[in-house]
């Protein structure tokens, strides 16, 4: 795309990503959480795909890395959900570190879910814009 579009996109996408990260990380207090924060981060990435084309965006957001990121985030999510049964004493120490007001480890679940959602949505965006 045009040079103006590329420069503006390059400049504004970090702010979109910081806003998305804010919504993911504050999911236990404000409305939002993993899904809506993931959608906003993916929207910033879609702006990059539109501005630079699929080949240009793939230099930084390669599709294999996205699949791997999603699988690892899913593994972390499943580990957190199963950890209450098997590693109860370690989990209470973990909850002590991440315990924000009264939310337990909802913060970790939000981050893992947000990473899964953003990886899935960027993969979908690649699939639709590829020829």
């Amino acid at each position, binding site marked *: 795309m045009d040079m103006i579009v590329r420069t503006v996109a390059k400049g504004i996408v970090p702010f979109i990503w910081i806003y998305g990260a804010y919504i993911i990380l504050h999911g236990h207090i404000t409305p939002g959480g993993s*899904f809506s924060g993931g959608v906003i981060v993916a929207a910033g990435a879609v702006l990059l795909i539109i501005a630079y084309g699929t080949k240009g965006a793939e230099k930084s957001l390669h599709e294999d890395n996205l699949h791997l990121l999603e699988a690892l985030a899913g593994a972390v999510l499943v580990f957190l959900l199963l950890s209450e049964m098997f590693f109860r004493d370690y989990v209470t120490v973990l909850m002590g570190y991440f315990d924000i007001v009264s939310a337990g480890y909802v913060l970790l679940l939000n981050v893992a879910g947000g990473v899964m959602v953003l990886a899935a949505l960027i993969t*979908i965006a690649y*699939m*639709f814009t590829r020829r």
Partner: protein
Amino acid sequence: MYIVYLFVAALMGIGIYAVVMKDNILKKVIGLGIIGHGVHVLLVNIGHVEGGLIPIITSENIAYLGMHSVDPIPQALVLTSIVIDFGITVLALSIIVMIYKHIHSLSSKDVGKMKG
């Protein structure tokens, strides 16, 4: 007071009309989305209480909050359902992209004749 149920019925009617009567398959997928949103409005309305309080416990209102607060469960159900409908819409659109590559037409009559 029952105007919300009429609104839900109107949304579902518009959605069903779009799925059944429209020829363009993209419009059918939009109709599916409208039906989904109608159901979400119904779900959120189920939890409504007349003159209800916000369901956040502070130290003053802990005594009477249980009886007078708005129900917080349906909004969680609606969030789950929005994600599910998003997944279905993405899948429907990718199937439409593949159909277009085969027959270069977005009319449902041509889709019905695809097998020959």
